[in-house]
């Protein structure tokens, strides 16, 4: 396919942006300035100030002398990039591949191969971009050509037409100054010194001569503009393989409308995924609002699925988070994470219930969608004696236990997260206590089993071992108590309650 690129040059990016934000500045000359070596240097100039002869790179004090009414605004580093990023994301409506021009940091490069016919040809396409951006308040110059380099050159320095037909980029470049090749200042100065004021005066020279005088970078830039060398654009948003768009005739404002949009998107996405044997793991719904902002909701599934009604239920939980404001004009549904889906053979009768039952998986997806994956726990036996470490969190719903659960030793039904100190009276050392006081209540021990000594794993943490006793008080309450440490040991022993038996 014939590749085509568009360059959008924002000639007064910062000034336009400032005027959009503060319309009262539109008839005042103003500049942006940033501190540099202790002086304020001008970084951007408004069109009115430019008329006074103020240029980028002047000192703010000098500019004020030229134009006494000049407004000097503070500039922040990185602001052009942020602005371009925002504009670039808005421009994704024109092409999925939008890149920021890293050279001048004042233009966007779009790979528009196969996009322009949607707006009735390249002329209509450029017109649309131009008028939309102009209505927003941005002054732009456009260029369309076979290479990003040529498009950039035409948008910045072209004088005749922004539309360079396929294969004619070399002719279009001939009359442009060498600045149009995105060269560094040093090379440009050298070219000017040698009298090369137009590209045509050196384009025919042997490559070896050019390389010797101007370096490899110069040749690369030239080749990229002509098209003999490929230039790779780094897209702002990497296009997702599974993605569906739904443009709306009228902005959508209601919950019902959003739900219909989600349903439509899911239908076509699931159809595609089904035909390729894939299932969704993560889904991102992006709504582009007419006020230029974006709203986004994300869902996740615990197993790959292309069941539209299930996915719709997951989105339904999140619909309330979508703020349509004045309305959403474009919905995009991406599936950044997909997995192969196993299509189980449908059983004739009811399937065997279990953890991998479809309805259970769907329930967990819904819970995860509403509350989060982190609230769902499953436990597997761990081969450890220390009570707190004797159970293991399972990673997935279908993970199988590696060991069997121990049933030879009594374990309490309810375990306290941290053992609580208790007061105890024990008659003989190493015997269960006679009574203990927990939460101000005295429990007289009637029966007891134990001790069960559990040693601490010294390679994991330091401390005393525990001697566990299973005791029953006179009334039938059953408790799990332990003594930490030896009687008469170097450290003082302590008694704790750690759980309740059924």
């Amino acid at each position, binding site marked *: 396919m014939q590749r085509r690129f568009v360059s959008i040059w924002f000639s007064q990016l910062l000034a336009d942006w400032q005027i959009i934000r503060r319309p009262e500045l539109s008839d005042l000359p103003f500049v942006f300035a940033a501190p540099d070596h202790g002086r304020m240097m001008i970084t951007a100039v408004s069109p009115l100030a430019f008329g006074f002869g103020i240029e980028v790179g002047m000192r703010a004090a000098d500019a004020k002398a030229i134009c006494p009414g000049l407004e000097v605004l503070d500039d922040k580093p990185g602001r052009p990039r942020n602005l371009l990023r925002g504009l670039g994301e808005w421009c994704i409506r024109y092409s999925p591949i939008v890149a920021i021009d890293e050279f001048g940091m004042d233009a966007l490069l779009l790979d528009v191969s196969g996009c322009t016919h949607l707006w009735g040809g390249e002329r209509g396409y450029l017109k649309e971009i131009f008028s939309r951006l102009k209505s927003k308040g941005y002054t732009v110059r456009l260029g369309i050509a076979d290479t990003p380099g040529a498009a950039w050159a035409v948008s910045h320095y072209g004088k005749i037409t922004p539309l360079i037909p396929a294969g004619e980029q070399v002719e279009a470049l001939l009359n442009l100054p060498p600045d149009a090749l995105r060269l560094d200042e040093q090379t440009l100065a050298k070219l000017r010194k040698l009298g090369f004021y137009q590209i045509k005066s050196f384009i025919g020279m042997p490559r070896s001569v050019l390389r010797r005088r101007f370096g490899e970078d110069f040749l690369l830039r030239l080749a990229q503009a002509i098209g003999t060398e490929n230039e790779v654009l780094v897209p702002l948003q990497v296009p997702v393989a599974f993605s569906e768009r739904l443009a709306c005739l009228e902005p959508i404002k209601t919950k019902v409308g959003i739900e219909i949009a989600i349903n439509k998107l899911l239908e076509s996405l699931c159809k595609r995924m089904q035909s390729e044997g894939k299932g969704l793991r993560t889904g991102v719904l992006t709504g582009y609002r007419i006020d230029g902002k974006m709203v986004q909701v994300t869902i996740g599934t615990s197993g790959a699925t292309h069941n539209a009604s299930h996915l719709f239920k997951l989105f339904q939980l999140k619909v309330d988070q979508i703020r349509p404001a004045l309305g959403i004009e474009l919905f995009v549904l991406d599936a950044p994470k997909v997995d192969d889906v196993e299509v189980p053979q449908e059983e004739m009768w009811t399937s065997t219930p279990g953890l991998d039952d479809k309805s*259970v998986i769907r*329930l967990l997806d819904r819970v995860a969608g*509403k509350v989060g994956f982190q609230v769902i*726990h499953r436990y597997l036996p761990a081969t450890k004696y220390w009570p707190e470490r004797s159970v293991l969190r399972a990673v997935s719903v279908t993970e199988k236990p590696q060991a069997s659960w121990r049933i030879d030793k009594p374990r309490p039904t*309810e375990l306290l997260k941290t053992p609580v100190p208790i007061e105890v009276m024990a008659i003989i050392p190493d015997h269960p206590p006679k009574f203990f006081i927990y939460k*101000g209540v005295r429990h007289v021990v009637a029966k007891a089993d134990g001790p069960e000594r559990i040693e601490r794993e010294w390679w994991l943490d330091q401390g005393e071992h525990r001697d566990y006793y299973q005791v029953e008080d006179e009334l039938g309450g059953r408790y799990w108590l332990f003594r930490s440490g030896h009687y008469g040991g170097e450290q003082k022993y302590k008694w704790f309650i750690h759980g309740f038996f059924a």
Partner: protein
Amino acid sequence: MDAKKELFQKLQQDILLWQGFKSTSSGKAERIGLGGIEDSFPGGVFPKKAIHEFITIAPEDAAASDGFIAGLLAVLMENGAACVWVSTSRRLFPASLSLFNVEPERIIFIDVQSERDVLWIAEEALKCEGLAAVVAELNKVSLIESRRLQLAVESSGVTGFILRKDGNKAASTVATARWKISPLPSESHDGMPGLGFPRWQVELLKVRNGNPGSFVLEWAGEKFKEVKKLNKQTIWSDLERRQIG
């Protein structure tokens, strides 16, 4: 006259069926291993398609209720189905469930922050036919909330257990049965020292269309065993405890 009687009986049967009680005449009676307690229920069958409410105030009661429910889960989960346990402040120790013949890895614990989420998840889970049972630990349940849960149960047939922490016995809910399980002193065999099988006072405070009652039950290693002959004993939770300090 007989025709009228027959009509009434038929209607009563229908009502029971709608409320989730399976009639015994429709097939083999499914016993859940509760022995004589099951006779308290209409038709003598433990209602699986229903909400069971457990009042647990003291941690000892809660532990006893957990054990009792675990014993029931062992039967309910026999077919391999999973169970969901929702709570805001769970203390259940998964490893102990294996002592009640329940595979702990088949229980999905959902630990959330708010009571609202517990109710929402419990309702969603009760609608999920692939589950055997849902256990929800709640502080209190209102009539409307319990009715929603009951409606969810009626459509799916999942057994619902609510562990209620407020002591208001009179609180009106639409639960089919209201239980209170408290521990009793155990008795070891042949006068051996140490603890015997866990033994509980099982109070069936309310049964819809059934007969409430009080029973003494033991988890005899593998199954419930009703203890008929009992020495004079006090019920744990009815006693005033002496406060110290």
